[in-house]
């Protein structure tokens, strides 16, 4: 069950602060890293929402992101709509697709759910890969970023866009946190804990899970719009299942079911990747070892483990993690 604890709020502020400072005082390259982190972190929050709190370990989040990016690009580039309505349609496409995936797969669980989502993701990937109108494997270019000149800022500036990404990350975190601590989110946690009993007290769990997937799809869709506007170009590579795999890795590395953990995981993975690739082409192996260590160390992930230490140190006699004190989202 989700609680926005003081530790989580502090970690959120530190993480977002770090990204903002790193972008502000870093090189162009640093700004690119920051935007890469924010996209990955948003997608990881989206996945943690359904996997960490609803038990739905999806392997199609890359595809959901890609569908949003494609729908956005089709509207703005192919049909010439302004970027804001295009983005809205992109988000709607992501919500509809993920809601549909959720609705169809709601009666499955565990490995079958994972495989079903993988199949949906691959279908979406193949569709865009084969579609000549959408550029096939070459993808599409010609995307414009949102026009924020009325705010006096130029989105084509790398720093402005990186800070925009950080702001969107904060927005997505707040959306996820509000949903998770609402009645809807509490019931979702209940379904994760014991679906059978949740039905016995009168919840249509299949519908609830489908709605949770749709909400998760909204967040993944936001990552898709940001990704399309970042590279100004999209291709079916966004939808490949390894993208979804990497997001899952980030969620586990940071701490599944903690919401802020995935943000920490995204920062760690991208930073590790860029730092290590200066020294070795085998950086994947180092990341792999870090992941194995994180899993062996109790599966709580990096943030999850630190949170566990801090809580058990303050109340060593409590054998189980007590519920954290609820702090309002300020």
């Amino acid at each position, binding site marked *: 069950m989700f609680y926005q604890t003081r530790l989580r709020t502090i970690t959120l502020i530190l993480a977002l602060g770090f990204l903002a400072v790193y972008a502000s005082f870093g090189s162009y390259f640093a700004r690119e890293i920051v935007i890469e982190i924010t996209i990955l972190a948003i997608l990881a929050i989206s996945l943690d929402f359904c996997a960490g709190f609803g038990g739905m370990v999806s392997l199609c989040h890359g595809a959901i992101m890609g569908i949003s990016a494609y729908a956005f690009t089709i509207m703005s580039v192919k049909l010439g709509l302004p970027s804001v309505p295009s983005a809205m349609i992109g988000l709607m496409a992501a919500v509809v697709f993920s809601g549909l995936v959720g609705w169809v797969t709601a009666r499955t669980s565990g490995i079958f759910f994972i495989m079903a989502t993988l199949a949906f993701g691959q279908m979406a990937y193949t569709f865009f890969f084969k579609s000549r109108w959408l550029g096939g494997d070459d993808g599409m270019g010609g995307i414009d970023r949102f026009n924020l000149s009325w705010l006096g800022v130029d989105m084509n500036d790398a720093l402005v866009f990186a800070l925009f990404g950080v702001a969107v990350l904060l927005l997505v975190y707040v959306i996820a946190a509000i949903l998770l601590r609402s009645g809807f989110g*509490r*019931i979702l946690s209940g379904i994760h804990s014991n679906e059978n*009993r949740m039905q*016995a007290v*009168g919840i249509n769990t299949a519908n609830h899970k489908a709605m949770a997937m749709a909400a998760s799809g909204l967040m993944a869709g936001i990552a898709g719009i940001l990704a399309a506007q970042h590279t100004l170009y999209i291709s079916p590579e966004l939808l490949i299942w390894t993208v979804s795999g990497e997001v899952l890795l980030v969620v586990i590395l940071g701490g599944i079911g903690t919401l802020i953990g995935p943000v920490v995981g995204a920062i760690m993975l991208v930073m590790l990747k860029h730092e290590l690739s200066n020294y070795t082409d085998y950086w994947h192996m180092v990341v792999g070892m870090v992941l194995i260590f994180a899993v062996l160390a109790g599966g709580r992930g990096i943030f999850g483990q630190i949170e566990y230490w801090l809580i058990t140190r303050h109340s060593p006699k409590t*054998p189980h993690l*007590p*519920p954290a004190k609820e702090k309002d989202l300020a």
Partner: protein
Amino acid sequence: MLEVKHLSKDFGGITVIRDLSFTVNAGERRVILGPNGAGKTTLFHLLTGVEKASSGSISFAGKNISKMNAVERARVGIARSYQKNNLFEHLTIRENLMLAAAAATGKSRWFFRDVINQADMKTRIEETAEQVALTDQLDLMVSAVSYGNRRQLEVGLALATKPALLLMDEPTSGVGPAMIDTFHQLLETLPRDITILIIEHDMDLAFSIADRITVLNFGEKVFEGTPEDTRGNPTVRQIYLGGGDGTYGATNDHA
């Protein structure tokens, strides 16, 4: 309140419930007795909609609910506690009761507001905790409390939905004598606006709380009456003590 007519259930070739009819009045405490395999738990599955009956009908509060699924039946006010604990593990007792109460009051559609600290919910959680004597354990994890406490919570989850009809499947199964007293008290203090159907193996408890008793054997109703009549009934004695002509024995390999 509850009217069961000619209810039957077959699993493949095995008939587990056979042409069962009975009526339970509003506010009544009805005990279901019967040896292992008599079909008591299957009857609860049929009443809650977890299993579909092969034939027959079930009416609740004047409405035919035979076609309703489990979720719809929960929503019309039928709640159930399980023979084996079926709780929300890895959560606290407060969170467990909150989930049941939130589900029953339609708060699963609250997308922005929290339900844990909401006034109505708080009252309901605390009231239920008091009913099942778990007030002091509210903020403990389910995994950190005793087995007896978990049995109390099992009933608490059903009560938190404020049901009109409560089906209790052996609430005292596996608990010690002291805990049985707790359950005895609990059952006696529950308000009469809840109708209770209870499967119970502790005879003292069963006979002292029951208004009427229905005895099942091999899926059939063999007796129904007041506790006094039940005690004196030769068929019931035969089922429970064995012997006689061997028609009702201790060996029972029916499902």
